[in-house]
């Protein structure tokens, strides 16, 4: 008798399962945003490589970046990057629970403590903090770049 081992039955999943529902497709697009994260890193490194090589290469990079297909890729990349940022920031409160330390809670006014069930920082506040951080970082980067050589 041949020895066989029972294996759990696994239903076959169609290869293109993520085209079947809008929510699945949105999930897939969200996951695919990582491709544009990699593209953005590559694009940034090409810029920095050109900057390291001198002003001739820097101008060459600017000319390359102005080609219609590169602009098209970057517009698409920007859309996906913003999609990544928004979905990532909105998910944050689901991924982590932030609690106010007990000592601080004891000092806070009752009206505020009542609004923090079990000392939990409400989700909307965590999301709001993320957006504030986003604006802050983007403003600093844009300010530094624009001020650097105008």
């Amino acid at each position, binding site marked *: 008798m041949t020895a066989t081992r029972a294996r759990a039955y696994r239903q076959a*999943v*169609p*290869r293109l*399962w*993520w085209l079947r529902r809008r929510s699945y497709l949105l999930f*897939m697009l969200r*996951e*695919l945003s*990582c*491709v544009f*994260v*990699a593209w*953005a*890193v*590559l*694009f*940034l*490194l090409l*810029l*920095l*490589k050109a*900057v*390291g090589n*001198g*002003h001739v290469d*820097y*101008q060459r990079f*600017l000319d390359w*970046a*102005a080609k219609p297909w*590169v*602009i098209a*890729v*970057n*517009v698409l*990349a*920007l859309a996906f*990057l*913003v999609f*990544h*940022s928004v979905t*990532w*920031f909105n998910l944050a409160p689901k*991924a982590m629970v932030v609690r106010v330390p007990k000592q601080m809670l004891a000092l806070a006014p009752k009206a505020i403590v009542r609004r923090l069930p079990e000392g939990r920082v409400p989700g909307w506040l965590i999301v709001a903090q*993320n957006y504030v*951080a*986003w604006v802050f*970082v*983007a403003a600093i*980067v*844009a300010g*530094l*770049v*624009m*001020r*650097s*050589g*105008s």
Partner: protein
Amino acid sequence: MRRRARPIEPFLWLLFSAGGVLAALFLPVVVLLFGVVYPLGGIGPPTYPGLHALAAHALTRVVIFIVCVLSLIHWAHRFRFTVLHGLQIGRLGRLVSVFCYGGALVGSLAALVVLVRI
């Protein structure tokens, strides 16, 4: 036989999350400026000496290096599962992992070389 859970997985998820945060905060503004605004000619790009001075600053280089490395790990980890689940090719898991994490490693080394040479 059931394989034991590899202890490196939680660490990868941690790096994936950190990369997700940094990519979300830093990368849109970079692509917006150098990929869309400057090429379309709305405002002129920074002149070479100024941008070179900014890029050559030690703090700039350290921040960019961390953003690049963690963003690449974020890509590697997410792309690995997107490919495995999206194309239903679980049996190629090892190959996909080598491509993803190997790619992130190569990209990180490239970032190191580029940043050191500025």
